[in-house]
């Protein structure tokens, strides 16, 4: 019985290995799944008011990053964005909103799940951007990640930009 179980498992290992060579959706055998907890900081902007879009802790933000269907919007200035940002995020700077909005609005449906962030909890661009999208542009699914760039980078989560050292892990 035990021998048969081992044979079945061994066969599975071989087939899984072969399949992962040819599968177009193949993945690394050891993936990048950092342990993300929120114990170190309580991030909150003092300007946050009741009725504002909901906020996310780091772990929740990373869950949404993994999900892949969320659009991350970087509310910082373009120069900061270029230096480094959350992997896959788009720059929609609160200060340069008018300039950037025209190109972004063409592909951003109103029901898109959006996560806004800026430098960290002391910056308020993510909050203002989220308010703007919800109140003035009718977006229904916006959340704010107050931890922002600083806490994301600190936990060595996937980033891209000039700062990022070569190709980051997926």
């Amino acid at each position, binding site marked *: 019985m035990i021998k*048969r179980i081992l044979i079945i498992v061994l066969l*599975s290992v071989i087939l899984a290995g072969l399949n*992962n060579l040819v599968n177009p959706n193949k993945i690394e*055998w050891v993936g990048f*799944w950092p342990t993300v907890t929120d114990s170190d900081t309580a991030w909150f902007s003092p300007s946050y008011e009741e009725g504002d879009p909901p906020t996310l802790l780091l772990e929740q933000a990373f*869950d949404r990053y993994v*999900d892949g269907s969320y659009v991350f919007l970087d509310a910082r200035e373009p120069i900061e964005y270029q230096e480094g940002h959350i992997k896959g995020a788009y720059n929609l700077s609160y200060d340069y909103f008018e300039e950037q909005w025209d190109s972004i609005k063409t592909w951003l449906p109103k029901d898109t799940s959006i996560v806004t962030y800026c430098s960290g909890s002391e910056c308020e661009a993510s909050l203002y951007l989220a308010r703007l999208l919800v109140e003035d542009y009718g977006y229904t699914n916006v959340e704010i990640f107050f931890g922002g760039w600083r806490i994301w980078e600190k936990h060595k989560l996937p980033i891209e930009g000039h700062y990022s050292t070569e190709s980051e892990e997926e």
Partner: protein
Amino acid sequence: MSSSDSGSLVCMRVVGLLLLVSGIDYFVGFLPAHPLTSTLMAIGAIVLGAWGVVGALPDKYAFILRIVVGATFVYAAIDKIVHPDQFAKIIYYYKMMPGDLINLLALLLPWIELISGILLIVGFWEKASAVIIAGLLVVFLIALTNAFLKGIDISCGCFSTTTRVKGEVLSYIFRDIVLIAIAGMIVFARKSFLSLERSSAASV
């Protein structure tokens, strides 16, 4: 009759009871989550269930249960084999596995499910397969219960914590228990149900 074996008989009665309950629930609706989705399934569950409860389910029908479990696993495995990347995310969302093991599990688990499921359907090495499947089902049960208690929404891979979603998890848990009991029937049966290895010498 193989079902005269006591371990198998207990499992058969459990299966019968659960099937009976879920079949009646389809028409009356007293469970918090409804595991069955069609009238045909409900009638089948009541008939098989009543038979199982009295412990008199003949082998030729018990063999249907074996195929149901095998087919469930084959069906469940195929999508995961095609999309290991998506399956890895689902494992991640359970928040129970060490990060380094997630991809390994995502790649390996569906193949174990597929092979065990196929062996169970054709009835070859079916006891070893049933032991593996029962083991996996117990692990799934722990994961599902954990997800239910934490309120993680695992049905869509997202993270809302509504009661509706909890109901869905409950029906997964119910289904899991039914499958464990069926696997138990196969494991404890003295002989196997209409399988390729009908001679008792073949079963270890």
